């Protein structure tokens, strides 16, 4: 009897999903996202930038750490952007090819942004979901901790961490990620509070599913939409933080580079008539951040029905 019912339910469920195939949550969201012109164009530009950072090196004449002795020290006269010399974006003051360095900086900055955001998303989601689901005293204590951490000036602590544990790129993104999950955990907690009294969670609890399993199998998947939105908005924030630290000279170490380090170099030499050293990295930086913000906004409109 039960088996029969199960089959029936299965058929019904299949019918249901068949009839709603055109309007599932994600498909609906994709349609809404595509209607947002700014977001679609931003996505396209961002993909081009990512693609460029992978394909670009095959067209480079110089590597990112190779020094062109002709241009060294006389970048203002010899190192300007040109096709003939192979320095498409010009050279920096040491005669290194800016085209290759911008590509390398793009790779590193995007990588730090994405990895840092993933650390923040994983920690923040689990923390927020646990806090919201368990509720009561645990919730209060966990959220108090977040409050306390939030009022600490984290950039100072991050610089401290970098000095104490050595300045490496791994430390950089772990540090940034570990310090930027706080907002995420608050948002996730709020959503979890809404979810946890729904019937399907109650059903899971009644059938004896463990708390951990309910959080990871039933609550977190239902949070994915909002997590995706805030993750997209987190990436530019983390890129900004990394650039800030690299601008101070405390981030990525030579000969590796990142947008912040390149902007710092370019900004330091603007009085020598070598504007390209600032403008090329700056253009990549500004355009990419714009794209991330527009994509994040588009995703929010598409996935978060409350905001509309």
């Amino acid at each position, binding site marked *: 009897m039960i088996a029969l019912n199960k089959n029936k339910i299965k058929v019904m469920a299949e019918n249901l999903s068949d009839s709603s195939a055109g309007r599932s949550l994600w498909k609906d969201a994709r349609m809404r996202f595509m209607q947002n012109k700014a977001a679609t164009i931003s996505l396209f530009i961002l993909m081009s930038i990512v693609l460029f950072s992978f394909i670009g090196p095959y067209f480079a004449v110089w590597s990112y750490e190779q020094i062109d002795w002709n241009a060294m020290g006389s970048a203002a006269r010899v190192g300007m952007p040109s096709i003939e010399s192979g320095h498409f974006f010009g050279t920096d003051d040491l005669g290194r090819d800016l085209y290759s360095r911008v590509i390398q900086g793009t790779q590193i900055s995007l990588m730090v942004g994405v990895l840092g955001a993933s650390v923040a998303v994983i920690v923040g989601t689990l923390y927020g979901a646990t806090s919201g689901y368990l509720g009561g005293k645990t919730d209060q204590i966990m959220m108090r901790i977040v409050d306390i951490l939030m009022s600490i000036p984290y950039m100072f602590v991050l610089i401290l961490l970098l000095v104490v544990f050595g300045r490496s790129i791994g430390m950089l993104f772990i540090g940034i990620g570990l310090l930027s999950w706080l907002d995420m955990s608050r948002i996730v907690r709020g959503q979890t509070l809404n979810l946890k009294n729904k019937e399907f969670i109650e059903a899971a609890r009644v059938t004896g599913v463990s708390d951990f399993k309910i959080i990871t199998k039933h609550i977190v998947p239902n949070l994915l939409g909002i997590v995706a939105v805030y993750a997209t908005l987190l990436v530019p924030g983390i890129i900004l933080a990394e650039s800030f630290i690299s601008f*101070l000279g405390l981030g990525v170490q030579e000969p590796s580079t990142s947008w912040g380090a390149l902007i710092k170099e370019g900004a330091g030499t603007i009085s020598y008539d070598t504007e390209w050293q600032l403008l090329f990295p700056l253009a990549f930086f500004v355009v990419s951040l714009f794209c991330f913000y527009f994509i994040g906004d588009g995703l929010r409109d598409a996935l978060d029905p409350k905001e509309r």
Partner: protein
Amino acid sequence: MINYIIKRIGVAIPTLLILIAVTFYLMHAAPGGPFTSERPLPPQVLANIEAKYGLDQPIWRQMINYLWGILTEFDFGPSYKYHDRTVNEIISHGFPITLKYGFWSFIVAIGVGIPLGAIAAIRKNTWIDYLAVGVSIGAQVLPNFVMAPLLIIVFTLWLDWLPGGGWNGGEWQYLVMPVIALSTSYMASIARITRSSMLEVLNTNYIRTAKSKGLPTKVIFFRHVLKPSLLPVISYLGPAFVGLITGSVLIDIYFSTGGMGYFFVNAAFNRDYSVMMGITIVVGALTILFSLIADLLYAWIDPKIRY
């Protein structure tokens, strides 16, 4: 209200203690002591120096001593790198500078941001609105370290109006660019928050009622719209303050203004732990104090908050 204040202070004090404890243990987890150098000192000399600074005692003892020094005499100990300067001297030298341009940046961010957002909300879908929205989106991707070099290109190199750096006792020419560079992105955020919260308030029923009973626009705006739409702005002031003080590090480096950030980054390069620790704690205390004030202000303005 009093209960709320006490409760809120009850959170602020442990926060500060945790910050101090974390920075203190971090410093001690760092490899190498403050006196390890290229040329190793004779063990006896090292032991004497460590005894002088109290470094031979157990770590919890050192921490209590340190905390005691701060609480009773506001003493952050000596700098480990510049033997003739104490951390106090460094802080009292750099801090007024940071405070001065930080204060002006804050004023500019609020004084321009709120009116800009308000005008954009009232004149929705006019060119002023589009301009305000455009500026606030643009400023999101123009953080202080991008603004600073762009300002120098325009105002120092092209127009030759302003000096490219220095402090000179805080004359206004030296103040303009740091303040603009530091405040722009917060001004933009404040404008965006003001705009969206004011739009929300303008659509509420009680504003419609006020309009329909024929109140003049000015009265509606100042008596009924302004206060509730400023609430989100007030809750943003705490994070904005943290951002400003973080940004000041960069301003000090790029414009050579000589504030706290300059000493902080120098200390980071020199591994001058006591200076880093002192500045982190002072900045942390300031931010905690500020977010306390912002929260109390919020509770005072918003009658819906129950304590």
